[in-house]
């Protein structure tokens, strides 16, 4: 009998359990932008192309990258001085995103990307 793929089993159990494996997602901006930032931050009156709250437009990979780096929300190589992480962690400011905060694993992935020099890769 053919076995079910592992991800199907994990998916079926997902609502009732939390799998604690190592985070093997790539700490690369192309992935972070598509998987975390665009769906989480580029919402209607926040950092979409229409509103670009605080001048921050995160609706696409390149414009999001240059906004964060050029406006110094991200200091490449120095996550502890990057305002982006303070906002995500609610340090000195109200937490962002204010309607759907990110799980710590996502914040850790963004931190790892910044620590690696925050390339637009």
């Amino acid at each position, binding site marked *: 009998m053919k076995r079910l793929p592992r991800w199907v089993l994990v998916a079926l159990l997902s609502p009732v359990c939390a799998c*604690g494996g190592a985070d093997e997602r790539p700490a690369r901006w192309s992935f972070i*932008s*598509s998987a975390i930032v665009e769906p989480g931050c580029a919402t209607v009156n926040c950092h979409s192309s229409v509103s*670009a709250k605080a001048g921050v437009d995160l609706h696409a990979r390149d414009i999001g990258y240059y906004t964060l780096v050029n406006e110094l929300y991200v200091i490449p190589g120095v996550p502890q001085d990057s305002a982006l992480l303070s*906002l995500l962690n609610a340090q000195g400011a*109200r937490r962002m995103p204010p309607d759907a*905060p990110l799980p710590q694993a996502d914040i850790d992935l963004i931190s790892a990307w910044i620590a690696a020099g925050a390339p637009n*890769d």
Partner: protein
Amino acid sequence: MNTLHRRIVRTLAALVVTAVLGAASRQARAYPQFQFSSGTSQCSQCHYAPAGGGLITDWGRSEAGDTISRGGEGAFLHGAWSPPSWLALGADVRLAALRNDVGGAQAPEYAAFPMQSDAYAHVALPAHLSVYVQAGVRGDVGRDESVNGRLSSVTDRFISNEHYVMWRPSASGPYLRAGRFFAPFGLRFVEHIFYVQRYTGYDLYNETYTVSGGYMGGDWELHVSLFTPPPESFPLPLQSVGVRESGGAAYGEKRFADRAAVALQARLGVGGEATRYQAGAIGKLWVDRAHLLFLGEADFIRLQVPAASAGENQFVSYLGATYFPVRGLMAGLAYERFQEDLSLGRTAHDALDVELSLFPWAHFELLALGRFQFLHGATTSDGDHASLGMLQFHYYL
């Protein structure tokens, strides 16, 4: 924290209030809670759109007065004037007050504001054709210079996120629709905050230009759609926000004994940087004796990001129960989960929602909403949860 760092954080903190207010805007969607519970088994009995949502029909207006609210005349203008048979009109106005607490400095925040207001027109044409237009003004989130002067006036906030032409010879049978609207997929609640909308391409103002066709049977319906986002060159009132994807979607629903339904759905969305493959199911069950309606949706998503040579399997779900103790009152409790990566439990978003809706008279609704989100793995001293409380007044013409 250096000076520049502090300045940026302070500036953004001041902007968060309006961000939350904007996120709490709402638009013309639907009340899937009324399917079966009101004695109506098809969404399109109460709405002009084949899959539901938006302007309600004469039948829907009658139901709003006779079944859903405590009483009153549900017709346009409370029955004071009836438009000609080829024309249907409507409007929505909503006001809200909220308390939002996501932790950090300056939390919680309090605010009161008008939400999006909409006007609707449905014009019947010869040859079974019709035109539908919805236009409105985005919610006023107050003075906000941070949006570069955009959206700072009523004209800037004008928007039309639904407008289409439809061929539909009868209530049952085939139909075709083309224009701007969401491809039928998933549970489309009035409140847009639920994960099954936010993370499946159905967030606020994310409507696409869509060609959709389908068939409405007595106890089943099928909708197949192709869609693409508005070009970025389009004027502001026609722009969409959120994930920009082109692709296709299919939704098929089978109903049983006018009190239960099962739906299967699939969607492919191709964006500039990523592709999403989605498949899922929806279940609806009305328990008449208990006055309880159960609604559930579960979708699996494969997100592929070629530039990163990576992808992840995601899961998003909604499970809710709505209780109708007396006519005009609706109480709901729901659990939601969005897991960004199925192999990592720490990427889960979980939420509990409590809703209480009172329809004291036709055309009026009072809503109280509570939302509690768990922040998995939060390491700050500001707690491991976020909460939202909202009171809302809704009037429709």
